[in-house]
């Protein structure tokens, strides 16, 4: 029972990071109808940024959050202007393939520059914290990651739902032609999506360095989980992604307790069930 409770808590905490990763994915998907297969690689680059901020400048992962966020936001803008923005309106195949190519490219770049070795920040500040609530032990890094991820996810949701600019982004996603009549340049809004996605993944990467290692393939499992989260929350729904992230985190924690090798398989199977049976997502209304 204690184990189960512990898994649920751990799952909830890591679920917040899933939510943050998924938010950018679902944003790009909802607004542009593009699946960013390179999303996990953006997280991976965020992790490396945070790692090098520590190894070169001695910055704790918590302090490198802004740096990682801004760096990957720039990377996102580069990816949009350099590649994704250039295939909009071309064949659907080119649109699917281009982010896939980016994924391979970024992973290859990391492998080439930094070798396949894993890189870890040995003792981040957060690792010194630890709470015990009854039988449940909560690690500092987990709490820091969850709190940071929730704040960042909330910020994105606030921006999209409550600000004028966020409204313009949504308008561009719903009807680009009408939006441009209203003086909104859809392409600028698309670029903004990539910047926001970059910010979110960069922040996620820096947060993750509190307890994970950076490696060229570090983003893979997170992005696969993020796909599941996006499907659960309803493709394109930011609030849905935030809630679904927590849900998927808990599910993963519980499955991991009984069959640790199969957590990803279980998540993917759930994904298939969701898209086949309820394509609008568990939490989606459409």
């Amino acid at each position, binding site marked *: 029972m204690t184990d189960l409770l512990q898994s649920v808590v751990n799952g909830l905490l890591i679920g917040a990071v899933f939510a943050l990763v998924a938010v950018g994915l679902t944003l790009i998907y909802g607004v542009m109808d593009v699946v960013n297969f390179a999303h996990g690689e953006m997280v991976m680059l965020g992790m490396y940024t945070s790692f090098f901020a520590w190894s070169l400048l001695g910055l704790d992962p918590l302090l490198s959050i802004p740096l990682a966020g801004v760096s990957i936001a720039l990377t996102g803008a580069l990816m949009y202007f350099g590649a994704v923005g250039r295939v909009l309106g071309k064949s659907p*195949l080119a649109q*699917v393939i281009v982010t896939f190519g980016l994924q391979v490219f970024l992973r*290859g770049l990391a492998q080439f520059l930094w070798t396949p070795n894993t890189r870890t920040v040995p003792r981040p500040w957060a690792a010194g914290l630890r709470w015990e609530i009854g039988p449940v032990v909560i690690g500092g890094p987990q709490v820091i990651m969850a709190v940071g991820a929730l704040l960042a996810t909330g910020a994105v949701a606030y921006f999209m739902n409550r600000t004028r600019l966020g409204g313009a982004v949504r308008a561009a996603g719903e009807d*680009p032609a009408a939006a441009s009549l209203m003086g909104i340049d859809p392409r600028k809004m698309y670029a903004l999506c990539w910047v926001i996605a970059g910010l979110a993944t960069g922040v996620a990467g820096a947060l993750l360095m509190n307890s994970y290692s950076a490696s060229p393939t570090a983003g893979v499992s997170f992005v696969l989980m993020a796909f599941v989260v996006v499907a659960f929350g309803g493709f394109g729904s930011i609030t849905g992604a935030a809630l679904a992230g927590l849900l998927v985190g808990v599910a993963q924690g519980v499955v991991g307790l009984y069959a640790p090798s199969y957590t990803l398989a279980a998540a993917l199977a759930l994904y298939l069930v969701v898209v086949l049976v309820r394509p609008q997502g568990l939490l989606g209304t459409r």
Partner: protein
Amino acid sequence: MSAPTVLRRPSPARLSGPTGRRLPSWGTAALILAALAAYPLVFADSAAHNIGILALTFGIAATGWNLLGGYAGQVSFGHALYFGTGAYTTAALVRQGWSPWLAIALSLPLAALLAAAVGWPCFRLRHHYYSIATIAVAEIVFILVTNLPGLGQANGWELPVVEQSLANLQFSLLDKRPYYYVALGFFCLAALAVWLFLRGRAGNYVRAIRDDQEAAAAVGIDVHRYKLAAAALSGAVTALAGGYYVMYVLFVDPPSGLGLDLSVSFTLMAVLGGVGRFWGPLLGAWVLVFVQDVTRQEFSGSGRSVDLLLYGALIVLVSITEPGGLLAIGQRLWAPVARRLGGGRGGKAAPEPAGSAEVKP
């Protein structure tokens, strides 16, 4: 799933370039075959033969992918599943003492059935929904094979080394030409099967489905059925590659037989060479295998590989400049030359769509 709008409206014409050139003529086929047959005689060293064997084997898989992804427009990122079906079935039966020929032959209908079974629910999904679903299915199988007992788990399976003969599909590693020519034979078989499928009604139907599913249904095409047919043949062809690959390396484990990277590489080969073009995947396979070989030698030992980097860059470059791949780029470069050389023939090969569209109805 909002309605497609001005910016998102795809123009399928860019997918495959000038029409009417999609299926090869006998002349082109004979020329390519002759060049492939001559290759191991011109390049005599074992390393070159190795490149050729791998390029042809992966060329088979990519040609299989292209049938479903390129011609029928159903972009699968999970084709390693069928490659793995070929590899694992062949490995399992050969370890039981079966003839590898029989084992490979048996794996083909198995992969076809599996592809149809996967397609049955998944083909209700469109575009990237379908693509992501294929990843999910293939990754689930990967995890199951890695963990469940009975299929070698993470350690994989080795195949017994037996007497060298054509019947056993095992040859000398000093002179790999037999391996090469068998691969060439299998490639011809695969190409022929795909060509036969595409040449008649089915070929027209799957291209119609790719261009516009609703319109295809409106002219009486059973969309689901033809997607399944394309998937089945595509799966079988890809399994052929898997079966032969395992006989060549005599080993299979989850990453080499079922990995996501493998699925990616089939897609990349087809896209690089020219998706929806008959010889595109073969060309892409040669280029990628060659690049991989060269870069692995260049950077061996350091753990750094430049090949992924190059693949990725090539793919991005191709998709933003010419989604028709290297073949389309080649055609574009060749067109003015051909026009200058042959006059009428070059002009016919590259029709001017703008001109014809200006004819008033």
